[in-house]
């Protein structure tokens, strides 16, 4: 057994004729938090969709806990302990707040997260538990989306631009909860446009540019120059 928890090898992804990822290589170690940054359209969401099984993958391209998951369906991968907080939150509109959380925990994987601990993390959700998820503010919806992923007690949790469209004060509130979330030994991939947020919370960072890994490094030693070079390719 290697220490590599997730290993991505030469990953391609296509939308019809359009190729969105080109030979991406990446690894996440056990308990590690990795940031993925890149301009709009660089392929960050596509990368997370591929890992979760929402995009078809070629054999051997994605390994999770030493098993090749490239050929599995998304629901099978969810059983293995992988959860996604999707871009744009994507709550179930016809489910209440609490139902959204419950369905996140329907696989009943053992672990620290349950309704009680999610409500302790985001107390406002306990007050709004019976509201339709559509009645919540953007920040509260994001808390539901995070709580829904936590309810699965995942071994790997992936966040796709959780600060998108939220007011700075709300972003601060949500990010202050993140250490609690990933402090429990889970690994995490954080996709974020806000580079300083991404660097401060992660130990390593990958920068995607037009579907390719343009830069990889330690979050505390990587330079601004290298990042802007990798971001814009200039």
């Amino acid at each position, binding site marked *: 057994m290697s220490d590599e928890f997730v290993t991505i090898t030469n990953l391609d992804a296509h939308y019809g004729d359009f190729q969105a990822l080109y030979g991406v290589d990446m690894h996440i170690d056990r308990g590690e938090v990795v940031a993925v940054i890149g301009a709009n359209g660089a392929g960050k969401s596509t990368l997370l969709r591929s890992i979760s099984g*929402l995009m078809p993958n070629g054999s051997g391209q994605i390994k999770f806990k030493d098993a090749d998951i490239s050929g599995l369906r998304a629901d099978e991968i969810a059983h293995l302990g992988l959860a996604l907080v999707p871009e744009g939150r994507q709550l179930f*509109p*016809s*489910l209440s707040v609490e*139902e959204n959380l419950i369905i996140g925990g329907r696989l009943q994987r053992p672990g620290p997260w349950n309704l009680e601990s999610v409500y302790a993390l985001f107390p406002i959700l306990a007050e709004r538990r019976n509201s339709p998820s559509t009645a919540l503010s953007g920040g509260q919806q994001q808390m539901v989306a995070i709580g829904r992923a936590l309810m699965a007690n995942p071994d790997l949790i992936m966040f796709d631009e959780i600060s998108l469209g939220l007011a700075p004060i709300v972003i601060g509130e949500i990010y202050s909860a993140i250490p609690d979330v990933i402090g429990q030994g889970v690994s995490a991939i954080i996709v974020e446009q806000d580079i300083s947020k991404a660097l401060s919370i992660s130990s390593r960072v990958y920068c995607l540019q037009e579907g390719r890994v343009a830069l990889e490094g330690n979050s505390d030693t990587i330079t601004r120059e290298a990042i802007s070079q990798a971001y814009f390719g200039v």
Partner: protein
Amino acid sequence: MDWVNAIIQGTLLGGLYALFAAGLSLIFGVMRLVNIAHGDLIVFSAYVCLTITTSLGIHPLVALVLVVPIMAAIGYGLQRGLLNKTLGTDILPPLLITFGLSVIIQNTLLQVYTADPQKLSAGDLEIASIKVGSLAVGMLPLLTFAIAVAVIASLQYMFYKTALGRALRAVSDNQEIAQLMGLDKRHIFGIAMALALAVTAVAGVLLGIRTSFDPSVGGGRLIFGFEAVIIGGLGNIWGTLAGGVILGVAQTIGAKIDPGWQILAGHIAFLVVLAVRPNGLFPRMSA
């Protein structure tokens, strides 16, 4: 008094139409599939019941304990083996496939049972009635309506109060994200079709007790079911019952004016609702 009678008869008839509609509505709600073969599956259920009652010599309502699970199993198999493969972003393939299925079912029934009209014999139940004031209300229509209410109340409960209902709503809302919750949509769709055909089984048996049927009558039941769904509003389970009742009352009032107008009056009521409230009277889902 005749008019009151017509309205009561129409209301009770609406229960049957609601049963035609419920399965259709459930399938559309969960997987956006318009099942053209729905009416033929209703008739098919009546024939399944006919075979069971004649070979076992049991009452058609007792035979429901067999017809319902048989139809549910057929529904699950049909969904997993055929219909799941037609579902995608394009809505045309499921329409074409279920249309083909409709033709296949009709012709198979013709081969096996011939075109002779058949009827399910329910004995005394068919003629029993109770007096309400000066009106005689038939036991069978009353029972049909009560069963429709019970079926719809159960569906409502299942949808909004159980884990299965939560899963069905989640898949209906967002198939991709539902899969991330570990839900296998192919299985969930199979369950939805099984439920729909279980309701269809009840509808088919009650239809077969009420009137004679032959392999060609499925299309008409499909239309009534559609109209009840649209009048009631897509995705609203109780709205389906309201839609069935409105359709039933329109038909009996039409028939009261002139016996030839029964079906036409139903279609007119449908068109009026569609023109005034294109989303139906009680729309619910933001589909």
